């Protein structure tokens, strides 16, 4: 059980979840694992906020959930991006890119 090395900036959790779901439908556990791995174990989803975030995204209509079966033949709830979710992801990615660029610009300036 590794401790988070980086704190997740406010509002980025939704973006990460949407991104993690953009390739294929996944259940909650896999979402958290995927983000953990892809980030080189630098990011850990605070477990308490994962499910509320998923439900919130579902309510907003960006992802939808259905029960399915995992590769180990276990029943799990799978989330997938909706069309509106994809649009949202694209928009948030652009915004994030701009934000990072802008913050970097400020920080590089001596």
């Amino acid at each position, binding site marked *: *059980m590794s401790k988070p090395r980086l704190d997740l900036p406010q509002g980025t959790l939704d973006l990460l979840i949407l991104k993690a779901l953009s390739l294929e439908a996944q*259940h*909650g*556990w896999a979402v*958290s694992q995927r983000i953990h791995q892809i980030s080189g174990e630098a990011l850990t989803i605070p*477990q*308490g*906020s*994962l*499910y*509320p*975030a*998923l*439900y*919130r995204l*579902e*309510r*907003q*209509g960006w992802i939808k959930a259905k*029960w399915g079966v995992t590769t180990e033949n*276990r*029943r*799990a*709830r799978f989330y997938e991006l909706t069309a509106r979710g994809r649009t949202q992801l694209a928009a948030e990615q652009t915004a994030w890119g701009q934000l990072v660029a802008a913050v970097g610009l400020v920080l590089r300036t001596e």
Partner: protein
Amino acid sequence: MFRDFLADLAYRLRALVSRNSAERSMAEEMQFHVDRAAERLITEGMKREEAQRAARVAFGGVEQMKEAARDAWGTRSLDQLRRDVTYALRLTRKQPGFSTIVALSLALGLGATLTVFNLTYNVLYAPLALPHPEQLVVPMRITKPGRDRMFSWAEVQSLRTASRAGVFAASRGASSVAVSVGERREFINLHFVDGDYFSVVGARALRGRVISPHDDAASAPVVVLSYAFAEQLFPGDSAVVGRIVSIRGAPFSVIGVTPKSYRGVEYPGWFTAAIPIGSVSLLGTQGAGSDNGGIPYGRGDDRLTDLRAFNLIGRVTDNPDAARSALASTFAQCCARTLDGEREGLDLVDSRRGVPGGKNDFRNQVRFPLAMILTGMVLVLVVVCCNIASLLLVRASARQREIAVRLSLGASRGRLGWQLIAENMPAAMIGGVGGLLLAAWCTGGFVRSLPSDWGQIGGLLNFTYNPVLLAVTAGLTLACTLAFSVYPALRATRQPLASALRLDGHASRSRGQGMTARGVVIAQIAVTVVLVTTAGLLSATLLNVARVDGGFASDQVLLVGIGTRSTTYERQGILPLVEPISRRVEQVPGVRSATMATLLPLYGGNTFFIDVEIPGYVAAKDESPVTRLIATRPGYFATSGTPIRLGRDFDATDVGAAQPAVIVNAAFVRRYFSDRDPLGRTFRAELSGVRGEPTFVRVVGVAGDVTYQSLKERPEPVLYISFAQVPGHWRDAPLLVRTNGPPLRFAQTVLKAIQSAAPGIDARRASDMQTQRDVATTPDRLIASLAVFMSVMALLLSAVGLYGVVAYSVSRRTSEIGIRLALGAGTRAVLWLVSRETVWLVGVGVIIGSVLSVGASKAMRSQFFGVDAHDPTMTIGAIVLLAAVGIMASSLPALRATRIDPKIALNAD
């Protein structure tokens, strides 16, 4: 945007409806997550049980997460509302006593407030029951002395054709017009309307039709009756249309009946019947010299004269300002005259609430008293809320541990606070509905208690469940609920958990909470002092008014109105009938004496004011000396009980063309003769209206002052003259009869005697002086009784509030008192310990209240009569009363405190 909202709502509702399966699904999902995490740990070499525990710990509080997830679902607020309501209903059922108190006191407070609100709304603010009343306007002529709405027919025509901004219609009225069906004869106010009138006003017929332009053009003998008048003329007969009624002897056929709700556009609006203006000529003409009082058929058709006899009413559908200026400029061109250097103008007056400023428009007189009473009622409501709030504070402290436990188990403060507020909703709603029903009941009783003279106003006041009233009821109920529950809820959830959970947390928390409850009680007491003081001053006013002598006899006096309009005597007037009627009535057994005059105190008649020129009297600037003129006959003063202080009564020598003898009242002497003996003095009086020319008159007597309109009025100069010396045309004169025994018992025989002296004359409205006095004091009585009612309620509520606070503090300090008793404190010391609180609560309350009372009675000075607004007696009385109430309210808990058994008290917690 809206689609998103709908989708969101649908999601929430789905989640709410399928809440159980969603919760199960959530639990399963979370379990799945924890299982995966545990498996991962096992693969990393951890033992199974250890791994499962570690995974659960890492996952965090499942319940908190579920709460957060429910938040995310958005079902929480809906879901909680449902649960709160269920909980509140369960609590209400569980504590019927408490809920009953809340509902009952709220119902009382709201009932009283809504009763007054309903009266106020109906009298002052309710729009006419016509389509789009806000479009109704009345053109008024602006002249130097004021506004009036009379126009000549030529002016009416010019204004009507010129005004493109709206449609206008003309009408006029006439009083005491005889309308008969068979033997039944009624004297009514008749309307004469042009063909557009009903369509402009927007009134339709309930049965038949209303008057059309065709009726007017054809001078058709048709009449439209009001619902009430049709009922009166044809009792129990609904097939009225097509029947024939006789108006001043001419047959008119009924073409329609207006709905019950139609009162006409005047305020307060007692529409009775209308005929086309064009049909005026059918009514016949009246004797010459009869233009006093505006009888339309006096000289035939006034559309042919320049007499200003017509009213206009208009409907402006858009832009009233444009209509106003268009009409004003038309008026300036066609009609405006210059009088005393001032040019006349024209204004459009908003008439959505009935044409203002009419003879019977009493709104300005009642506006202030109603506002005052409404304020008082709202204060009572505030006291009610204070009381419930302090009850809730006490109850919340009893539930402190429950609340503390729930807070420490993770319930959020907002959640718990909202629930504490929601708990009161069922009782509050019952209180609101109860208040509405109570108001309906009170209004019914109030309308029935009005003097019969006010019958027509009663119709105006009737209780209706209109949307405004319902909205105000709902708003007030909600406002009260919030007012009495928000603070206790905030307080209850702000407990320091540790002390609240401690079993003996009394000492640490009783102070802050007690302070609030005490503040509430102090506010109650202050408000009560204001209400009691005001009620005292108003009651003293009523007593003073009722005690006013008035300058006339009030016992065994019968009064009857006698008129000649629309009778065979119309041409000759009442004058030739004065002696025959008076003499004939005096022959009725049991009648001591009878007399007639043009005006009788508190009963009415003709109001005349004439100019006088008194030698030696220097008039103030802008003052022209005037006096009220009353014509009467010899013996009047003895019969009416008005003393002749100097000189003599009229006698048989005061007749004909000789210099008229006059009797003046004391106020006349004070003002115009500087209180010097006026007997034998002569002066010029403007008697041309009744005698043909100004005449010198000679003072033969001085009579005592009499109040004519109201018992509160200050006596004004009055000039009495004998009928025998003013041969003018008087249309009516009331009869005053002194009887041996209850006056109304003689009413029928007196009315019969009048008919035998003058068959077919219009004699009605038999009343006695005591009734007239009651009618005259009715407004004072109403206001005083309402004020007393309010202050009694406030007193009771304060007593309950005081009792609550003292009882609460005794219960809180049980162990302290026990210790004191155990250490040897005497009964007296304990009594003082407890009563000290009452003393300072009442003390602070009455000090604040007294200061407020000074302001309140100053603001209400105009409502007082014979009492000094600064008179401290009432305030002192109020203070004494409150002190007594305070002692009574606190004695019970105080005595209970002395009986505390130290052993039990110390073991209590």
